[in-house]
């Protein structure tokens, strides 16, 4: 093998991309050519230096933005099947379409009346009317969360969103169906957002529900073992932004430990 050819194979050798035969003939050449050995050592040094350069990570805000965007896309992706099935139902009214739609409809319907938007709507309206919006008035999550102890039979997730423009005002306990439910109260401009947090064992497969009822916008989703249901008189867009901000804070993916992973390849 000539040096010219050997030099071209040094990189692939370091990368472990040489065939057995080629590697063998390269080794043969290297054993007799000090110059090419020198070049290989130099190349290896360069590679090692490159691999030791610090890894930059994406800024936290980018992680959050991407996660929120993903949640929004995921929400749309989950809602779609129902929407798609409703159309053939109306236009074609095919027996099969109806059957499938009904079957899916039953699958996607909340299993208890407690989870229906109407129950939350009633609670929302009552909270505004009775002027008993909050039973505990505190913006500190460490005050609000313990307050629920003994008042509801679970420990709700309480997240402050003041940095996102939705200050936490306080909390109260509402009776939704027959269940005592933690309600968190947030403000957005002049509007009140009631966020109902209930434990659920149905995982996160439940579709995001979103809609308008009697002029109030609502959005419901599941995360971290809880069902979240937010309702407000503010616009649907601001409610969606609220839910995205909350979801971003509920789940921020950890950056991968790329340096640890890298060791395997050395």
């Amino acid at each position, binding site marked *: 093998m000539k040096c010219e050819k050997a030099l*071209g194979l040094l990189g*692939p050798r370091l*990368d472990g991309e040489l065939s057995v035969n080629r590697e063998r003939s390269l080794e043969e050449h290297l054993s007799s050519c000090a110059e090419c050995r020198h070049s290989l050592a130099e190349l290896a040094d360069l590679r090692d230096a490159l691999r030791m*350069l610090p890894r930059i990570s994406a800024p936290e805000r980018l992680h959050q*933005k991407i996660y929120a*965007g993903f949640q929004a896309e995921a929400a749309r992706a989950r809602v779609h099947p129902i929407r798609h099935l409703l159309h053939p139902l109306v236009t074609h009214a095919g027996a099969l379409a109806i059957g499938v739609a009904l079957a899916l409809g039953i699958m996607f319907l909340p299993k208890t009346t407690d989870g229906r938007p109407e129950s939350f709507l009633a609670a929302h309206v009552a909270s505004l009317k009775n002027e008993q919006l909050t039973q505990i008035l505190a913006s500190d999550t460490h005050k609000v969360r313990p307050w629920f102890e003994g008042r509801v039979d679970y420990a709700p997730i309480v997240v402050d969103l003041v940095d996102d423009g939705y200050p936490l005002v306080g909390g109260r306990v509402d009776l939704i169906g027959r269940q005592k439910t933690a309600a968190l109260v947030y403000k957005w401009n002049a509007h009140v957002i009631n966020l109902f947090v209930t434990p659920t064992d149905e995982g996160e497969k439940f579709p995001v529900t979103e809609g308008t009822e009697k002029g109030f916008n609502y959005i419901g989703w599941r995360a971290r073992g809880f069902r979240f249901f937010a309702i407000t008189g503010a616009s649907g867009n601001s409610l969606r932004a609220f839910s995205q901000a909350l979801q971003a804070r509920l789940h921020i993916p950890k950056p991968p430990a790329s340096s640890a992973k890298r060791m395997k390849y050395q």
Partner: protein
Amino acid sequence: MYRKRSPREFEKTMLPHIDAAYRLAMWLLGHSPDAEDAVQDSFVRAFRAFDGWKGVNAKGWLLKIVRNTCMTQLGKRSRNANVIHLDTVSGDHDGIGFSDACVDKMPLAEDVLIAADRQARLWAAVNSLPTDSIIVLILREFEDQSYKQISEIVGIPIGTVMSRLSRARQQLRARFLAQGKEGKNHEM
């Protein structure tokens, strides 16, 4: 139509690679809001195209989308640069428009607060390489992609990956040594 792949799967397979996506975008677009936008955009595209993922090398699949998004962005920049350049030829000659549209990559080195001078120089040397070279080098050295995976991401034959990588290393070596003039020193 239903999606074959669930959002949950996307979350598990693709979201862990935000940093890798960001790194590639930074190397290609420089330290600018464009890089963040490109990464965000890439994730939206990836989610929508997720059903088309064949289930292997999630990072490579995602980086291919990031690369394409960045290349589109670079294309736009050079088109803008051309337009501005022609304008400045006929009008003022300060060239601000042109340098604006070009990639200002150097602040990157300061940003990561590299302590060692040698590392800073190496960083700068990588940054000074042509985009074609940077891509294959980054994918190989920083993201552990094989030649075959690189060929899929960049859309070039494996032989071309090999020759580009070899050229990139030669260029890097030449520039790095030219900067430091300490070629005989093999120690870190």
